[in-house]
């Protein structure tokens, strides 16, 4: 009994640890997708944020890391909006260019600033009282602050998206930008705001990769998590709650991978490493046809 409980606890912890950055990034992507922006720069945003977080943490402590990651996400998103919204360049193309840019920048920053420093990870914050509960206490109430915020953000953002005036404006900008414009909603302003917001979330997601999952930055450590967050967004049918389910499912696949690594299958670890990517593809196969995908997704809006 004890053994099974332990296995289960480990499994769920591993699941949550993997799911958090995917979910955090996907929450932002749900908003930008809903407003009509396809942001495949998420990968690059997370990568730059991961290295920025490590630098911030090494020089100013974990809070500095979080702040620097959020700022770098915001700055990256500003670059993205400048080219896609102000200059109306193709979103996918700019996103691809951003990822190339980010790959170069993150390595350069890493070599320049992280050569001989120690990075402190996010500390665990046990919630007094609740964390003392048997079994569930350690599982649900002994995490880093960012983890609680991420899961609290899900219902909040669901509410904002579906029950608030702002959410209506956002969704309308992605479905019927022209109609929005005719009732005085500034479509490009809404889109800019939403992309900047998603940039901050992608930044925090990146910081969790370097400061939450590890306490160091390794070149290329984001390894497609930004792209997976996009898939989480599609698989979650473009809603915050759906994204949470999808992220936890992806996390479960990853936790399963770590579980299997300790068995004799571990010597074929490359195939186990393929699991999250395979799950992503399978999830897209299953769910791409029924979808809340916005009608004006990916199209620049040109005011008349």
């Amino acid at each position, binding site marked *: 009994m004890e053994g099974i409980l332990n296995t289960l606890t480990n499994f769920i912890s591993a699941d949550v640890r993997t799911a958090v950055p995917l979910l955090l990034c996907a929450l932002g992507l749900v908003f930008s997708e809903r407003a009509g922006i*396809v942001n495949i720069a998420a990968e690059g945003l997370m990568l730059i944020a991961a290295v920025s977080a490590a630098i911030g943490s090494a020089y100013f402590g974990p809070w500095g890391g979080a702040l620097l990651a959020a700022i770098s996400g915001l700055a990256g998103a500003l670059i993205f909006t400048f080219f896609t919204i102000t*200059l109306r360049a*193709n979103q*996918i*193309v700019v996103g*691809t260019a951003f*990822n190339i840019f980010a790959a170069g920048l993150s390595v*350069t920053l890493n070599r320049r600033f992280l050569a001989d420093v120690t990075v402190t990870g996010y500390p665990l914050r046990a919630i007094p009282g609740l964390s003392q509960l048997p079994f569930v206490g350690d599982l649900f109430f002994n995490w880093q602050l960012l983890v609680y915020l991420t899961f609290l953000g899900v219902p909040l953002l669901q509410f904002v998206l579906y029950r608030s005036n702002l959410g209506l404006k956002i969704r309308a900008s992605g479905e019927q930008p022209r109609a929005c414009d005719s009732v005085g909603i500034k479509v490009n302003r809404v889109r800019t705001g939403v992309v900047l917001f998603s940039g901050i979330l992608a930044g925090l997601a990146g910081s969790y990769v370097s400061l939450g999952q590890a306490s160091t930055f390794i070149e290329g450590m984001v390894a497609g998590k930004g792209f997976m967050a996009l898939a989480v967004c599609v698989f979650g049918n473009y809603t915050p709650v759906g994204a949470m389910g999808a992220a936890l499912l992806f996390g479960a696949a990853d936790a399963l991978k770590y579980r299997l690594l300790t068995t004799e299958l571990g010597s074929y670890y490359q195939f186990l490493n393929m699991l999250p*990517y395979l799950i992503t593809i399978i999830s897209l196969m299953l769910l791409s046809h029924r979808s809340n995908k916005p009608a004006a997704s990916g199209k620049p809006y040109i005011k008349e």
Partner: protein
Amino acid sequence: MNQNAKQFRFKSELKQLLLPLFSLVLALALGYLTMLLMGYDAAKAYQSLWQGIFGSRNAIAESLVQTTPLIFTAISYALTYKAGLINLGGEGQLYIGAVWGSVLGSRLSGIPVWLHWILIFAAAFAGGAIWGAISGLLKVRFKASELITTIMLNYIALEWVSFCVTNLPFKDQTAGAAPRMPTVVDNVKLSLLLPKTRLHSGFILALLVLLIYYLFMWKTTKGFELRVNGQNPNAALYAGMPVKHNAVLAFALAGGTAGLGGIINILGLQYFLTEGFASGLGFSGVAVALLGNSQPLGILLAAFLFGALNAGGIRMQTAAAVPSAMISMIQGIIIFFAVSPYLLSWIGTQLISGRNRHNLSLQNQLPPESAQLAMTTDRGKSDPEKSR
């Protein structure tokens, strides 16, 4: 009237060249600034970059060596782009092709060399083509976005390569060797074009494939069908073209081309496959295709530019201690500006009036040719099968 039209055409052609050049200058300036901010010796860095590109016979050869694989991965993106699809999976396709080709290149012997070459290239092409076609099939069958599936397949391919270089029956069994696949047999290695450099005849093959790309896309019916699908998927559908079949075909051809690029880098340069031997080539190929507007000549010029920057970047790292990754950053910036057709007119409006920052009155201006091209990238979205 005719004179006017000619003049306009010339102007727009000039503009097409102006924007990439302007982007290059701007990106180099921003790169210079970044290096200064980070405390590197930027002047020395660019000096050694230049040395690394044109400084010697060997440097020029090295630039061409780096150009070669980029031509293949660029075609891999450009071919699908012209067909209204997005292939970000060049890297995975390249690796799979290289694995298949190097199995045949190292295991077979005792057959005529021309036959051996044909078999190797066919295997590499087939490997890449199958890997590419998966994304095409997933798209037409399940409407799974090729944007994500191609990228996921890259990661899967990388894991597969990692398996091949460390496990039987694929790995090289030489005692004490680093993880890799066996060396290809001597007589299939490509000859050198310039003695005492690394420039191999794979470069000629790249030019040949570029020519085939041109002939196929612009001179055959199938190529025409693909381009129609890219320009206007509705028209392709109403004309009764086999749209779905064509999408899979485009992905297969794109993947096959990338696979050829992979095996050619092995036969001409490294002679055995290692993990990461082509790292970054996939996305660089995308960048090259974007900069070259998916046109054959554009791809050639852009591939040379990026290849030269890569070659110079290595020199920059050794001579000026600036990480060569700085080059990918600069390449990313080049693409930012080069794919923004309104950049020049935006700067114009900013210069005329500092106000109205967000209220660009761009509507009355005729978009330059490259703008029209760039805007049609969204074709995937207006796919008739997708609209509800």
